[in-house]
């Protein structure tokens, strides 16, 4: 088996048995990137020299038996939304084209502390706004399973890089589905933790009450390993939760016997792809066979989630993106020498179309006379959506749904109509509004060989049960690594 197709835990075992070195694994991944990334375009920057240095350090650390973690020496990639000290960080935007952060985001710092080797930064929708990665200012990432289709988004580069075996794992962010949706479309595991579980410090903000970082991996065990390294209170993020981080691996093999799985009728809707629905229902049967009890539940406000999301997320974005004004970092367009003119020209030429559209929507809905009708109303309905989950979780331990209504769509298919694109997140958005954890795991393929995702949602801070159920499915279904032919 090629080094670059191993899971984290398999590679880690080989590293600890000294069967391979981190330098060898890192070189294997760099070669793979060199061989396939012209087609996939998952990376905005590959940091080969730094990665090889980190790999040497990791090999030393293992040789000296110094603070070894399962990630020590494991090559990963990171979405270009995370600040990386001394490494260009663009958020796939022209406005940050030359930005080199003077510090590491907490997520990156923790992964480096664990000994992970960082191969480079992944492409994404500009400022994480999008569901197809077509909104990157720099390049389009292809779905490794069908090169004429999108990888999903906004963390499309991260999902594609794991699927194309260009890294052992990646880190993305999820504001309305941006980890789970591309994971489903690329056939990998994508985990969005509880809001506040992982620090947002140094993660470029889109919608601060929704953004959450999480891993892309080849299996659920790797997901537990990555999450353990990333999670935990951070004094530099006042919204991070001060709660102990459990050992996610200790309960992961416990199975689902007796576990109650809620099946919300609002997530099996007319118009969804028949093959997606069939695969997800088959997955539920497998979980039932494993001893889980399927319980019908209702999340009655689901149909309002997309509307709430696009008001709340854009309002927060319009405020967060005010910082890009040509003064402290990034692009400056200053033709006339007039300050106001500089702001406007900088922002107009630095931001792409979708980002401007969302800033406009957020600014409008927060402006005098509209605040009550839009932002306040949306925040109230958000409470109803959160309450729906609280009620449902009285009757079940986890909730299982399809991750997306359709498999990967073609480039350009939804670009012209923003609303259709927004509706592709219909099954993932509520989870962010409620702040609960969720995972997407592969549960089969369409006849055209496009991956399908099963979503499992859990109670706040109960990542353990979500991972346990996901693992039970993965094990019972006999999921083994599926790699696209490239």
């Amino acid at each position: 088996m090629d080094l670059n197709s191993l899971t984290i835990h398999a590679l880690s075992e080989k590293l600890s048995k000294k069967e391979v070195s981190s330098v060898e694994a890192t070189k294997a991944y760099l070669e793979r990137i060199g061989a396939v990334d012209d087609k996939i375009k998952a990376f905005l920057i590959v940091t080969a020299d730094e990665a090889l240095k980190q790999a040497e350090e990791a090999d030393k650390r293992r040789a000296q038996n110094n603070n070894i973690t399962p990630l020590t020496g494991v090559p990963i990639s990171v979405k270009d939304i995370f600040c990386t000290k001394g490494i260009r960080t663009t958020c796939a935007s022209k406005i940050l084209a030359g930005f080199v952060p003077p510090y590491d985001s907490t997520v990156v710092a923790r992964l480096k502390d664990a000994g992970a080797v960082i191969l480079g930064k992944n492409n994404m929708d500009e400022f994480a706004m999008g569901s197809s990665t077509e909104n990157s200012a720099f390049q389009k990432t292809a779905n490794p399973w069908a090169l004429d289709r999108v990888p999903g988004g906004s963390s499309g580069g991260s999902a594609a890089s794991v699927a194309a075996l260009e890294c052992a794992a990646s880190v993305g962010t999820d504001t309305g589905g941006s980890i789970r949706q591309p994971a489903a479309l690329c056939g990998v595991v994508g985990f969005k933790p509880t809001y506040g579980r992982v620090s947002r410090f140094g993660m470029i903000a889109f919608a601060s009450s929704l953004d959450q970082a999480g891993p892309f991996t080849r299996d659920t065990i790797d997901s537990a390993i990555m999450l353990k390294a990333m999670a935990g209170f951070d004094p530099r993020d006042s919204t991070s939760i001060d709660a102990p981080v459990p050992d996610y691996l200790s309960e992961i093999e416990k199975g689902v016997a007796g576990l109650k799985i809620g099946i919300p009728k609002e997530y099996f809707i007319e118009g969804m792809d028949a093959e997606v629905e069939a695969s997800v229902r088959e997955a539920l049967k497998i979980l039932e066979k494993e001893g889980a009890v399927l319980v019908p539940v209702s999340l009655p406000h689901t149909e309002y989630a997309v509307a709430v999301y696009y008001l709340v997320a854009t309002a927060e974005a319009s405020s967060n993106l005010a910082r890009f004004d040509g003064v402290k970092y990034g692009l400056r367009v200053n033709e006339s020498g007039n300050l106001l003119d500089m702001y406007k020209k900088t922002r107009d030429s630095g931001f792409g179309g979708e980002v401007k559209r969302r800033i406009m929507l957020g600014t409008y809905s927060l402006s005098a006379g509209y605040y009550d009708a839009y932002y306040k109303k949306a925040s109230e309905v958000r409470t109803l959506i959160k309450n729906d989950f609280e009620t449902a979780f009285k009757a079940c331990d986890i909730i299982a749904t399809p991750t997306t209504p359709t498999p990967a769509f073609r480039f350009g298919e939804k670009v012209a109509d923003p609303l259709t694109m927004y509706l592709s997140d219909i099954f993932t958005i509520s989870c962010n509004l409620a702040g609960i954890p969720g995972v997407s795991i592969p549960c089969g393929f369409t006849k055209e060989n496009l991956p399908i995702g099963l979503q499992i949602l859990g109670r706040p801070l109960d990542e353990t049960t979500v991972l346990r159920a996901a693992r039970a499915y993965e094990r019972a279904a006999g999921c083994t690594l599926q790699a696209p032919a490239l």
Partner: protein
Amino acid sequence: MSITKKDVLHAADLARLELTAEEQDLYTEQLSRILNYVEKLSELDTTGIAPTTYTVPLKTVMRADESRPSLPHEEALSNAPDSDKDCFKVPRIIE
């Protein structure tokens, strides 16, 4: 609820965005459609429902007023499009 080009220009001004004529028309049309869609929220009676702005309880974080290491000026200014000694430099504001 439809949005006029005047509303779009006002929002653009508030957001410090200079839109081309093409963008003005495009956003007037697209924002109207999106606002029409979100109008469905008005179907719901939310009287007495408290808004959710964060899903975790927020508390104001206070720390001791002690000096701690921070970014040196040089590094903090390293990405500035224009700077002068210890300051970010912007176009003249006061004539």
